[in-house]
């Protein structure tokens, strides 16, 4: 806390307004050796003439170029590692300076480096209008704990009315991948498909065969936790000696 007379305070306030602060975008190309001013001046503006005003300066004021250290622009790609790009020009002439400033020990977040006077706007997803107190949002999450707080007869998996009935309660992608999902579907609807939708049956079989080949040839044992999924009964194969049943022909 330091006290200054009113003129000096005004000067301080002007300085903090005019000079670029930390949060300003780095579109302007500064000359080398340019120092960012560290001006977090919190000025209590009470312009009463004749009274000495107090200014609460929490951090150091504008540093002179001589005293402070230089803020260096970094991230030059000198690695000579071949980068994957569409065309030869992009591969050959990589931009070496991406305009990134390392910000050590500073508050705030920098916007991403941008080309100066760039006309194309930043790609942003369209603004979504949120209605937090509309009925479906106000009751979001209701009945998720109904198996614990209710009478124990209903499970939240039974409340997934928006999900197709064959996929209700089925473990998601992170545990049961597409192959497992399709095998489950085939178990349920084999007869219906073969009778009424032979084309879909053919496509399903092709997809299952392709996926099982893909996983077996290209992937390590990803599904060693398959038995933990709790999808099917773990019954022993009683016919392992029966040569007419082969394991690569997956029979349903």
């Amino acid at each position, binding site marked *: 806390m330091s006290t200054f007379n009113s003129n000096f305070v005004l000067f301080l306030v002007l300085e903090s307004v005019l000079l670029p602060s930390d949060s300003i975008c780095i579109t302007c190309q500064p000359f080398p050796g340019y120092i960012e001013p560290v001006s977090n001046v919190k000025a209590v503006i009470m312009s009463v003439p004749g009274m000495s005003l107090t200014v609460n300066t929490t951090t150091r004021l504008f540093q002179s170029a001589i005293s402070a250290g230089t803020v260096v622009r970094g991230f030059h790609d000198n690695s000579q590692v071949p980068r994957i790009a569409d065309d030869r020009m992009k591969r050959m002439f990589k931009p070496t300076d991406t305009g990134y400033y390392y910000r050590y020990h500073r508050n705030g977040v920098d916007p991403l480096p941008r080309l100066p006077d760039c006309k194309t706007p930043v790609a942003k997803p369209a603004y979504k209008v949120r209605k937090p107190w509309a009925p479906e949002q106000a009751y979001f999450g209701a009945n998720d704990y109904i198996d614990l707080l209710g009478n124990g007869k209903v499970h939240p998996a039974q409340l997934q009315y928006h999900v197709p009935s*064959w*996929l209700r309660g089925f473990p998601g992608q992170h545990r049961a991948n597409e192959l497992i999902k399709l095998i489950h579907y085939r178990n349920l609807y084999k007869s219906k498909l073969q009778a009424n939708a032979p084309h879909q049956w053919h496509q399903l079989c092709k997809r299952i065969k392709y996926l099982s080949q893909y996983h077996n040839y290209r992937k390590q044992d990803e599904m060693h936790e398959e038995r933990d999924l709790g999808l099917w009964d773990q019954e022993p194969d009683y016919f392992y000696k029966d040569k007419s049943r082969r394991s690569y022909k997956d029979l349903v």
Partner: protein
Amino acid sequence: MIASVFRAPSAIGAVCQFRFASVASPSHRNPFVVTPEAFVTTLSDEAEKNVAITKLEPTIFRATPRLDLLHRNIVWQENYRNLQLTKQLSRAEMPGGGKKPWPQKKTGRHHAGSIRSPHFKYGGFAHGVRGPRTWFYMLPDSIRLKGLCTALTIKHAQNDLVIADSFESLSSDDPLFLHNLADTRNWGYSVLFVDTGSDVATKLVDAVEHIPSFNAIPIYGLNCYSIMKYDTLVLTKAALDELQEKILSQFQRTDSLQKKYKYMDYKPVLLGEGQHEEDPVFPPYV
């Protein structure tokens, strides 16, 4: 909202002298455990009028605030219901594309086996998004219970938990009255009224209907997301007792709280319930 079929049975501890003695934890004998307490208020006037003081269960309302578990609960609630119906067709599923469009050599063009290969303009996707996809998973019961306890602890510690004697004590069904009541008592912008079952006092329902940020749910609808979303939680005394009883009985149940969710256990129930949705002739889309 699920009908009152799922209403809890009447008080189990009616016979016992000490309220829910069968599930009460021995912490009332432990001198090192602080028992949290809360006022019981009436909703008859706008000004706050406290009628009684209740002791709350420390394992629920003064639990160690496991913010990481609360985070996991809320993330689970946000994600486990998600469904994606996008399907990008592969080259085999796209129409056409059976014939080799031009010979392998001598044409000067690149090798092509089919018109619907991924590098063709209207070709199929190689590793596209496939079919109806869910993010369904279940958290273990212990984590869900701990998340609930953490959320309730936070609400009580931050003076956002209000216990009303009954919602019948609300004197008028005017939404403005309820709004002024909440304003006087400093409840906040959003209030969640929790009752025992889905049959709530008529006056409260009429008042709450016209205020979008005031909502009423039964006990079984309580969840971490709603508890954290609403500024204030208003429980009836009966609802509070039932909630404590339920959570304590879950903590003390004989089967494991770490029980893994297995699809096999629920498969007959789920498929049985979904039978009426299926078309009798054609299988659903995949």
